[in-house]
């Protein structure tokens, strides 16, 4: 049985300057599952992430944490860890300074000491070095540490392995899987479909600001004849309408659209 959604958006709509970016979107992130948000550029993935984080205010709809409305609040973000895509940290600050700053903004201390943190995220070689002279991979490791060290209940990861070498990338993916095992609700956006195929339990496919598919990865792939995730997504994009076996725990949400037709 599927866990109750930990963080969700319900019937969200958002327009920028008259252009609708999200239309009546409902997405839930259940505990203990990894949900991948997919879609072409301009489909509304970033806006959805930002609405979940409170960086963008929806025109309509609500953000809920454990069924409590949190739209417009700031305290609920204590339950969320956010890893933005390739962040530009202040170039004169060191990783140590950034971790201390973020720690001072959170309601509770990290669950590990700085030394443990340095070991866990392999930061030792550059933790005191200005981030402006660190490599993209090193900055991404700091980025991951900022998101994960507070043991948040929800993780929002935007292109988490971008810029990482294969070893660091595999290590981060192992960590994400471990976080899922701890019962975290995890949302990932990534352009690397093989990575999502490996990690994601559920898929939310956005197109033109609407949810075109919301359900488990296995159901999506089964509905397209057992194709890989990449080919299944391709089939979704090519078809003017789709026939996906409804995934009851996901499509029961208000506003989630499951379009019935042929692939």
């Amino acid at each position, binding site marked *: 049985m599927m866990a109750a959604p930990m963080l969700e958006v319900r019937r969200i709509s958002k327009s920028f300057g008259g252009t609708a970016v999200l239309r009546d979107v409902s997405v839930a992130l259940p505990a203990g599952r990894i949900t991948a948000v997919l879609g072409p550029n301009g489909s509304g993935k970033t806006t959805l992430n930002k609405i979940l984080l409170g960086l963008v205010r929806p025109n309509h709809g609500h953000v809920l944490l454990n069924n409590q409305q949190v739209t417009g609040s700031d305290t609920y973000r204590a339950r969320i860890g956010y890893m933005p895509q390739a962040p530009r940290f202040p170039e004169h600050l060191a990783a140590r300074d950034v971790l201390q*700053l973020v720690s001072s903004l959170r309601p509770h201390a990290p669950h590990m000491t700085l030394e443990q943190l340095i070991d866990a995220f392999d930061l030792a070689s550059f933790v005191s070095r200005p981030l402006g002279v660190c490599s993209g991979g090193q900055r991404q490791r700091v980025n991951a540490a900022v998101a994960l060290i507070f043991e948040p209940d929800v993780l929002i990861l935007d292109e988490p392995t971008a810029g990482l070498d294969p070893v660091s990338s595999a290590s981060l993916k192992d960590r994400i899987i471990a976080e899922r095992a701890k019962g975290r609700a995890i949302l990932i956006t990534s352009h690397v479909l093989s990575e999502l195929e490996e990690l994601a339990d559920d898929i939310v496919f956005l197109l033109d600001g609407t949810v075109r598919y919301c359900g488990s990865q296995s159901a999506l792939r089964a509905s397209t004849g057992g194709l890989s995730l990449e080919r299944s997504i391709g089939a979704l994009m090519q078809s003017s309408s789709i026939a996906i076996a409804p995934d009851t725990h996901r499509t029961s949400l208000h506003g989630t659209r499951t379009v019935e037709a042929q692939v």
Partner: protein
Amino acid sequence: MNSDRVADQVLTVPSRETFSPGMIGARPVTPRFALVVAVLRAQVAEIARNRWVLAHALVLAVLTEALYQLGGSAPRALSGLLNVVLLLVPLVTTVFGVVYWHTSREFTELLLAQPVPRRALWCGLYLGLATPLVAAFALGITLPLVLHRAVTPDVLPLLLSYLLAGSALTLSFAAIAMWIGAAQDDRLKALGLALAVWFITTVVYDGLVIWLATAYSDWPLEKPMLGFMFANPVDLARTGLMLRLDSAALMGYTGAVLSNVLGGPRGLFLSSLGLVFWIVLPAIAAARAFARKDF
């Protein structure tokens, strides 16, 4: 419940076990002042090492030194610095503020994704931007005079007037820069807007006032002139400094009126109040824009 209102009341840090969704809407966490200080410290540590801020301090120091060498005394050096302070400080502050806003936008978003009230974050970012710029200005014009041992008791009031006026202009234009940054996402348009604000407040506005004074020279313009002066922070700072430099005589009868209104302690209070207004007004507008902005 308004989370901002209760933010300062709750000082205890809950454990993970005690932090429940029921607390949403309250802030059972760090007091807002501590959040502001944390952001301010990080921002100061970053901006104080920025090469443009260091260059700002260096240029002011070199100009002060050059004017001191040419004039031979601190009052003459400060007199020569008048237009430098009035033109350079708003220009550097506005342009640097807007550029820095856009450069640090992604990090600001990372901070916004933490459980921090937006207004507290804005205060930290604003003070963190303005403090190194004020320090650069103060060091730039003070250090050469201190090294020449030219800061005597009779020079001190004039130097303090410069420091206050320059700091007020920095605080005011830093708030304007953050207002522009929050209002305009396009980096080039924001930069153009910053330059336009600087040009209007430092050049166009004066030209307009002079044109009005010439066109309506037969009319008693002293009181409207006072109004015009208070309507622009650069003019307010200029008039205040000119009165301290005893240059009011250059402005004829208008100068006499200005000297009468702004010359004594009452005038100092009024002009200070005017500059405080020009700090608070853009700061409130910028904080509101930041609080309502979609990032």
